[in-house]
């Protein structure tokens, strides 16, 4: 139970799987509905939806930029933290655990404000960079738990076999353990990716021009609150639905691979 909880940190989307009849069909309904609604609004309610759509379009790119850069950094941090969390060196282990405990104890939005405004004067970084740093630091802690769970899911015998051949700790980890662990790690990483994409909406507060910021700009200017937020929500929905299907397919593939 404990083990399972830590690998399944995700607040990502609800991943549709064939074994979950309801969710599987709900996915189809949702994606059809969302895509249909967007197309209908864009083509048949062109005013004002076309204007809004064009205005927010470049925000989608920023959203993806922040997401992808952050997940890459978070994976790197997560790897280090995960290795630290399974380390036999008590100081290293404790440092990694404390990082996880502290970061997970503070709301992401507070971390964003902290990094941007509080530390902003010391490290004078670009807003996008600050956003990516904050997201990475935060998700690094979650990712660390994913990596840790992935690593500990590999049988102890593998480590013993590698060590008895003469590999040192590092070689054992990188040649034997991690190449096997990625099967376990990849689906939750996919889930974290989705969760992170949703959480990038928070960077809009730092005046980063992501999808939500663009929506806020046009709605506060045109007073088309209902129309704008409807469209923005639909766009987010379509993106996460597609990604969650991707994760679901990946999960099925990997579990198939694991069986063979």
């Amino acid at each position, binding site marked *: 139970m404990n083990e399972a909880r830590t690998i399944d940190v995700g607040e990502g989307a609800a991943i549709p799987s064939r074994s979950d009849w309801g969710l599987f069909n709900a996915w189809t309904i949702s994606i059809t509905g969302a895509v249909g609604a967007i197309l209908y609004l864009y083509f048949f309610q062109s005013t004002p939806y076309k204007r809004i759509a064009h205005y927010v379009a470049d925000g989608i790119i920023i959203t993806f930029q922040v997401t992808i850069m952050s997940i890459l950094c978070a994976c790197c941090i997560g790897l280090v933290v995960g290795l630290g969390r399974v380390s036999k060196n008590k100081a290293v282990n404790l440092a990694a655990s404390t990082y996880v405990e502290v970061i997970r104890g503070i709301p992401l939005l507070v971390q964003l404000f902290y990094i941007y*405004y509080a530390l902003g*004067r010391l490290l004078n970084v670009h807003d996008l960079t600050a956003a990516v740093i904050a997201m990475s630091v935060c998700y690094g802690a979650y990712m660390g738990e994913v990596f840790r769970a992935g690593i500990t899911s590999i049988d102890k015998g593998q480590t013993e076999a590698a060590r008895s051949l003469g590999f040192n700790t590092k070689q054992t980890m990188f040649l034997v353990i991690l190449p096997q662990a990625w099967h376990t790690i990849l689906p939750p990483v996919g889930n974290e990716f989705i969760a992170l994409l949703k959480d990038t909406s928070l960077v809009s507060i730092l*005046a980063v021009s992501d999808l939500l*910021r663009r929506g806020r*700009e046009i709605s*506060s*200017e045109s007073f088309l*609150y209902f129309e704008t937020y409807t469209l923005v929500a639909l766009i987010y929905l379509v993106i996460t639905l597609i990604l969650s299907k991707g994760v679901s397919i990946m999960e099925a593939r990997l579990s198939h691979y694991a069986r063979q």
Partner: protein
Amino acid sequence: AVLALGVVGCGEKKEEKKAEAPAAAPAAPAGPKTIIFASDAAYPPMQYVNDQKEIVGFEVDVIKAAAEKAGFKAEFKNVAWDGIFAGLAAGKYDAISSSVSITDERKASMDFSDPIMSIEQMLVVGVKEKATDLAGLKGKSIGAQIGTTSYLVIKDVKGFKAIKTYDEVGLAMEDLVKGSIQAVVADSPVAVDYTTKKHADKIKIAATLKSDKVENIGIAVKKGNKEVLDLVNKGLAAIKADGTFDKIKEEHKMK
């Protein structure tokens, strides 16, 4: 004047009062009408939150004085700027007192009181910046508060590296001080306040952006809400006539 308006407490208290408002304060049946003003209270010196968590400022004092003259009760409610007009349309409050510039676009969806005063748009830059107009800032980043007339001034200007919108004008100023952006456009009272009080040593006013139209600020009400509009206008006219308005201006060291 500041002491006189100490009634307004934390958010909760305001809510309670708001809920009672339609019942016209049963404790005092013949009492004056209460008008709830929404305010983005992060806009010094016009309206901001002080250490006692009260909404204070120049425009607040003006409204309070006008209320006294016109016989209504003014209550202030802190609302985030980028949704402030949505809330008015939804009837969450009766009016907006938040340095709202009177524009034709806004007039299409709400009604305005008589102008309180006129303002100008000012360009604020770092003390070392040499540029004295927008053109001189090409290739650099500029910011303004989201959904304001300040933002409209720069929105369509080409040549900036980035045009950034902020939830609060203070956050834009903070980014300017930090160096994340090189210029901020803001209403004149706000620009003066930040460049003289808060960050006098780091930022300065580079220019006043000339416009062919006079920009006035006023109180916004829901379209057709004549009752409130009349009360506000009556109060404003009264304090302008008897010199109270100028006195408040002096108190707040406004030019």
